[in-house]
């Protein structure tokens, strides 16, 4: 595939910690991807609308406030309702291991927790695109 990978990096909910989101956005960009960053305080509806409008291949969400079990699945569900089934949805932040299985079942393909090198994320995205 020679097409440039398009990624939406999103900050759902009210959490203001955006160091991780910004670092990842830059790392993906340096890896040759096209990155759109939403900024803070995005509702699941806004994230899905942006993903559709920007026609992205990947939605990456970052959340450190503990609201991931509500917000991540909601984004996955809304994407499905929009008929979007070829977008890779991933997440990261402060997420206890015991929550990861449930998030995967809800349609989040992978969860990257604290300490993950950006190189691993880049590799994961390249190997798991859905289109």
């Amino acid at each position, binding site marked *: 595939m020679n097409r440039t990978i398009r990624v939406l990096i999103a900050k759902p909910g*009210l959490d203001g910690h955006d160091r991780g989101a*910004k670092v990842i956005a830059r790392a993906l960009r340096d890896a040759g991807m096209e990155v759109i960053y939403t900024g803070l305080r995005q509702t699941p509806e806004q994230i899905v609308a942006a993903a559709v409008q920007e026609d992205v291949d990947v939605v990456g969400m970052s959340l450190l406030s*503990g609201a991931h079990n*509500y917000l991540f699945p909601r984004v996955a569900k809304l994407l499905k309702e929009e008929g979007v089934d070829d977008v890779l949805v991933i997440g990261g932040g402060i997420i206890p291991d015991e929550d990861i299985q449930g998030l995967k079942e809800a349609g989040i393909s992978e969860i990257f927790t604290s300490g993950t090198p*950006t190189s691993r994320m880049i590799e994961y995205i390249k190997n798991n695109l859905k289109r």
Partner: protein
Amino acid sequence: MFDKEKLSHLKEEREKWEKGVLGKTLSKAPESKDEFKTVSGSVVNRLYTPEDVANIDYESEIGYPGQYPFTRGYQPTMYRGRPWTMRMYSGFATAEESNERYKYLVSQGSTGLSVAFDLPTQIGYDSDHTLAQGEVGKVGVAIDSLKDMEILFDGIPLDKVSTSMTINAPAAVLLAMYIKVAEKQGVSPDKLRGTIQNDILKEYIARGTYIFPTEPSMRLITNIFEYCSKEVPNWNTISISGYHIREAGSTAAQEVGFTLADGIAYVDAAIKAGLDVDTFAPRLSFFFNSHNDLFEEVAKFRAARRLWAKIMKERFKAEDEKSMMLKFHTQTAGCTLTAQQPNNNIIRVAMQALAAVLGGTQSLHTNSRDEALALPTTESVTIALRTQQIIASETGVTNTVDPLAGSYFIEAKTKELEEKAMEYIAKIDELGGAARAIDLGYIQKEISDAAYKYQMEIESKETIVVGVNKYKVEEEAPKGLLRVDPIVAEMQKKKIDGVKAQRNNAAVEEKLQLLKKACEGTENVMPLILDAVGEYATLGEICGVMREVFGEYQQAVLI
């Protein structure tokens, strides 16, 4: 600090040593790296000698504690008088549960309270607001009305404790609630001691819990300065925070430079609002991060104290020495905690806490080992508190004031950090001040550049993080993390319904209308917020009125 003759002799001796003893060793055993750097990337020399401090005048630059320029401490006896306030930041779920945690912490020797609010509270939404979904009670306690605040401080005499509240955009509302709870306890406002964070500029820069645009936000802040200078004189009206700037990835010099630039903006705004500098400046306080690089951090605290003293005296012509004293709270660096091998975090926190103490902090929060995973358990918080108690009671570092002063290395680094921070302040002045520099994205860009650089250094292993990119082990997922039950949101909603059913709704409406009018005009809004709070208007209702008049801040999105 040495005379010329002595210095030139020292220089000769050093050069002799470099060619002789040092040269011989280097030829046989070279050093492990070409260049040694601090966590912030500033170069550290092999050796510091009197030559490195030759340009520092002891009396004018270092001096004595409790005296201008306060390099050695804000108070003359420091921890010989009493140790720093051990203030553990906590709060989660409901007011009832947080109240229990506060009572536990006080029973274990904690000497000040520090309230963490959940995100809806920090952004001025009630727990039943759509945008609060999933967030209620998660990163702190949910406060919707005076009712919750009464429960939060139930059984805690407010004339006996000092309370710090991490609240910014709606700081005026939470302070009003605190004053009302005290009133109900029979404690008058002039007896209240504590701090509200109330630092909106760093919310725009790094922390993200802003509500209103810059101008009305600055007005709310100066309204609080003015009100408290008359009614709540022992209250620290702002905690100008470098903590979150550092957490967002800044260097040590940027932390000092950007924080003091924010401080300058607040002083400017208050003076512009007609306040005399010496009426409010003594109640300004600061909040810094204590990161991994021990000596760099000690130098940072000392540099911040000296630089602020100079700014207040020279730039703002303050006359009261209290206006020139930088007093600060410290929290160990959350961003250094690792999810891997979480017990290692105890050691990191201990050393960061030591740096804060050697740097002369007035109060300290030590992070818990499990905070890269979740909110801390009671056991983890207790270890973190014990860490402070061990430093205070067992290590002996409290026996003398500013023990690292006079170290060639520390004094040279203090000077270097002061100069670098001053360069950032000059740049921000050039751009038109901190608020303008934030609008332009300058400060945010500087920080995210530094954060990216640091991350790349970790990935290339130029920077080692134990357990993350070296000394890794396979480990099982930690068990027994603290979880906030989603039922909390339901409980809060019920409480809001109860409050709304019991209060005098006509009076609430009237007070909200009066507040609205005040917001549209120029008078101090504090008394009107107090009135609305007293009638049990909710936080969301009060902030809603202010949102209507003031509008909302629009973030400059950049990466």
